[in-house]
């Protein structure tokens, strides 16, 4: 097809979870014929097992589809799928920046929900043309007319003639495609200007190296061009450019203004590709990069250790492989007295951390011990030096600390009015400072708080979900550091400090946290030959104490008829069990105990 911007449509699909985003994407792929029915697995774009299982998209993806519309013209549709979680807000914003329009999917029986609104606001921020689609009209409880009215009233988008579809049954898909072609604007980018290609995703391909997914905003790029990463400040020679098909690559001679596709340039390290960065040509660079670039910094750190020390190398290899595809993941070796050799890993947020842990366990079959997540604290020492601390163990001695600062976030909660009280209470509990409250469409309220990040990563999401029955949506952005009365809470087992269990916590929180962790440890540590005192302490002062009582009875009564196999088997099992435990001084601590610090009442 000849290059013609007026025939290009770049769009994404946004929806509240479970409103049918992935199914609609599948149907669109099917309808445009890029996927044959026989190639279809459910949710084609969510290719990772985890993505399908959790129903969330972790990586952005783009697919190009040819579509001959009713006006007889063949269009080029680029669907850019976006991640759906607050940890990946920045990635989402870059993907949206690559589009001109968004298809807003709303469930015909559920109507507008919290995420629907959050997504709409984000799309509006990027000046996207929003095209509502009412899905699941096949459900007996579907009320398309009511939902249509709701969209008009609450979001203020004209819903006249919006497609009514059942993605599940394949009804109305063509209407969606026609609506996209007719109402989402074509890109109007300047092909003659110097190249500006927005990177909205990156990943690693074994044959092509690290690849950038891009939207060309100006100019064009072709094989052989020398490109420059404007923020990354490095240069590469382009080896391949092209468009994505659902199951592979479609190489082209060039990628031009308005188009979406990929650029491969034999890039070995994915760290050289920054999402949000602008690619330009070394020979004829753009004067300015595209707006909106932010370096991605890990917000949350935790220690990841192999449950079996012998798996250290395998863990390193696995992290290296995941890192190939995930520039936001960082890791470096660390050692713990209790846990041995492992890695300090940095993540965008808790979900990102959880995803990485699960991928390590599933895709690489590793048993892990994970320490409590920590944010990065700023420590100003008495000698004037400032150090950043992402591991409580590395905190300087109290007498060397002048003061400490903790990272704060701008938090934004959108909630139905009924839950405002509950959320304010929660934010207060979490040491939040109230900033603003606004009534928005549909009886909803926008609450703004300043919150310490270390409270957010603790159990904020779970609490928010349970206190609002899942109706509130939450978004945050790092704001900066604030001075705070922080202390290091240590846990002592049988009098010996266990480094992997230390956390940094606000002084007001130390007592309840210490008591709760001690209780959790008491449950997690099995009885042993001797009584084990568990103590929580701040700077040597014990603030909570629990005791694991000594084992009462552990003996096989009878070795019958010279058959010692049972006894041997039992002992083997116990030996195996002990091997899976960590020795903290004389105490055997099971792996789960290290997660006890995380768990809530």
């Amino acid at each position, binding site marked *: 097809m000849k290059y013609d911007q007026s025939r290009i449509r770049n769009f994404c699909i946004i929806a509240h979870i479970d409103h049918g985003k992935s199914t609609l994407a599948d149907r669109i792929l099917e309808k445009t014929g890029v996927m044959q029915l026989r190639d279809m697995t459910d949710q084609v774009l969510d290719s990772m097992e985890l993505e399908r299982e959790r129903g969330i998209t972790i990586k952005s993806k783009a697919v190009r589809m040819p579509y001959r519309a009713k006006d007889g013209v063949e269009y080029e549709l680029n669907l850019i799928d976006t991640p759906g979680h607050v940890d990946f807000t920045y990635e989402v914003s870059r993907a949206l920046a690559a589009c001109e329009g968004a298809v807003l999917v709303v469930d015909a029986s559920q109507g507008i929900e919290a995420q629907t609104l959050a997504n709409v606001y984000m799309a509006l921020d990027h000046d996207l043309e929003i095209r509502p689609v009412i899905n699941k009209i096949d459900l007996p409880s579907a009320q398309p007319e009511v939902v249509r009215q709701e969209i008009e009233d609450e979001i203020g988008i004209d819903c006249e003639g919006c497609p009514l579809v059942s993605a599940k049954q394949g009804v109305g898909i063509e209407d969606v495609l026609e609506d996209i072609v007719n109402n989402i604007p074509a890109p109007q980018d300047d092909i003659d200007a110097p190249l500006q290609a927005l990177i909205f995703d990156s990943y690693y391909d074994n044959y092509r190296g690290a690849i950038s997914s891009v939207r060309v905003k100006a100019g064009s790029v072709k094989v052989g061009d020398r490109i420059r990463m404007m923020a990354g400040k490095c240069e590469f020679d382009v080896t391949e450019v092209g468009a994505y098909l659902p199951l592979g690559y479609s190489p082209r001679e060039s990628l031009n203004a308005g188009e979406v596709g990929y650029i491969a340039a034999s890039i070995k390290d994915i760290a050289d590709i920054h999402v949000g960065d602008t690619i330009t040509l070394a020979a004829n660079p753009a004067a300015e990069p595209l707006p909106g670039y932010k370096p991605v910094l890990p917000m949350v750190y935790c220690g990841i250790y192999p449950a079996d020390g012998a798996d250290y190398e395998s863990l390193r290899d696995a992290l290296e492989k995941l890192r190939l595809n995930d520039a936001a993941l960082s890791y470096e070796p660390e050692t713990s007295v209790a846990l041995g050799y492992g890695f300090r890993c940095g993540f965008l947020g808790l979900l990102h951390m959880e995803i990485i842990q699960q991928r390590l366990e599933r895709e690489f079959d590793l048993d892990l011990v994970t320490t409590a997540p920590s944010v990065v604290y700023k420590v100003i020492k008495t000698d004037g030096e400032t150090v950043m601390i992402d591991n409580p163990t590395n905190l300087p001695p109290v007498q060397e600390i002048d003061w400490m600062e903790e990272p704060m976030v701008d938090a934004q909660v959108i909630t139905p009015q009924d839950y405002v009280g509950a959320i304010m209470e929660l934010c207060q509990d979490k040491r939040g400072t109230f900033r603003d409250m606004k009534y928005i469409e549909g009886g909803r309220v926008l609450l703004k708080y300043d919150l310490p990040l270390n409270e957010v990563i603790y159990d904020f999401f779970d609490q928010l979900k349970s206190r609002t029955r899942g109706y509130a949506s939450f978004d945050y952005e790092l704001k900066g550091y604030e001075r705070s009365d922080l202390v290091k809470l240590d846990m002592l087992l049988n009098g010996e400090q266990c480094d992997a269990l230390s956390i940094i916590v606000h002084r007001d929180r130390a007592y309840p946290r210490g008591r709760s962790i001690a209780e959790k440890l008491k449950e997690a540590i099995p009885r042993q*030959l001797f009584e084990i005192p568990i103590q929580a302490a701040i700077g040597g002062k014990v603030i909570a104490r629990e005791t694991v009582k000594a084992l009462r009875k552990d*003996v*096989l*009564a009878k070795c019958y*008829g*010279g*058959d010692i196999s049972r*006894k041997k088997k039992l002992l083997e099992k*116990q030996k195996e069990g002990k091997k899976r435990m960590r020795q903290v001084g004389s105490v055997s601590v099971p792996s789960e105990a290290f997660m006890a610090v995380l768990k809530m009442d």
Partner: protein
Amino acid sequence: MKPLSLYIHIPFCARKCAYCDFASWPGREADWGRYFDEIEAEIRLWSEETDFGLLSEQYSIATVFIGGGTPTLVDAACLEGVLDACRGIAPFEPDAEITVEGNPGTLTPEKLAVCRRAGVNRLSLGAQSFDDGLLKALGRIHTAAQIKQAVAMARDAGFDNLNLDLMYALPGQEMAQWRDTLDAAVALGVDHISAYSLIVEPGTPMAARVASGAATVPDDDAVNAMQREAISRLSAAGYERYEISNYAKPGFECRHNLTYWRRGDYLGLGCAAHSLLRGRRFHNPDALEDYLSGMRRLDEVALTRQDAMEETLMLSTRTARGLDLAAWARDFGAPFNQGRERALARLEAGGLIEAGDGFLRLTTRGMEVQDAVVLELMGETV
């Protein structure tokens, strides 16, 4: 000549007890004849040259234990036949200890007389309890009165070495009932008492009862208290605890069982019987059909030095004598304490072990948690 112990398994009983998961089947009288034919064939095999050479040239038989099941259920002449056949394996030592296990409900003076004639000099009776209610709940076929009759019958037949098996930690068992049982056993003046804590084995009717909540086993503290009660009552009556579950008047320790704990050579004959012969372990199949079809010597392994060390540790520490430190150093080429200094110090300070006169032994408290102590002593080096 080295001492050899023989174990002969009789997998038949009148009724399966509620807690039993041993190889034993009620009924099956039709198989009894074939079974004894097979055992005698197996004995003949061991009487001839095998891959272990000719046993009769290396060993003398020090102990024989005919266990079950209920050996006293079958015709005593069959047991006599088996014992006679065993003389072909190796010569019996003049003072060989020959035990037959029996159920008090199956004894007759005639059977006992045949056993005596065949050379049996020790009788081990499965008494379990002197409480008729508990006996019934366990599915035993006898009453407390029958135990007393059986002991009298055995004494009359000339048995001067008698053991009673007792069980505690039974569902619903009160300390008072356990005391009465201990006292009753002592009053009968038996020479040896085995007191086993009930193990609820998966797949047994007992396990189903416990799982459904119909039966509740006493908690660990109650079980320990019962064991301590046994220790104090029995020692007051002159029975010394020489192994975790075994008590004997001086000179009446069961030499056969000591063979297991000291890792002496033993040969198991019959269904489900286990053997340790010249550093190799093997066993016969558990299923009667498999045994009758000729399957033998399963899972045979030559024990490594590591295996031998672990076995020595876990078996010897069951006994009051304890682990022989000099023998350890000689057999394994390194002092036991080496690499275990810290664990030993902790265990000793905690009152779980004591060392002296060349042996390492568990204290009363240590024996309550023997598995955990052994695990601790295995350490990283073993």
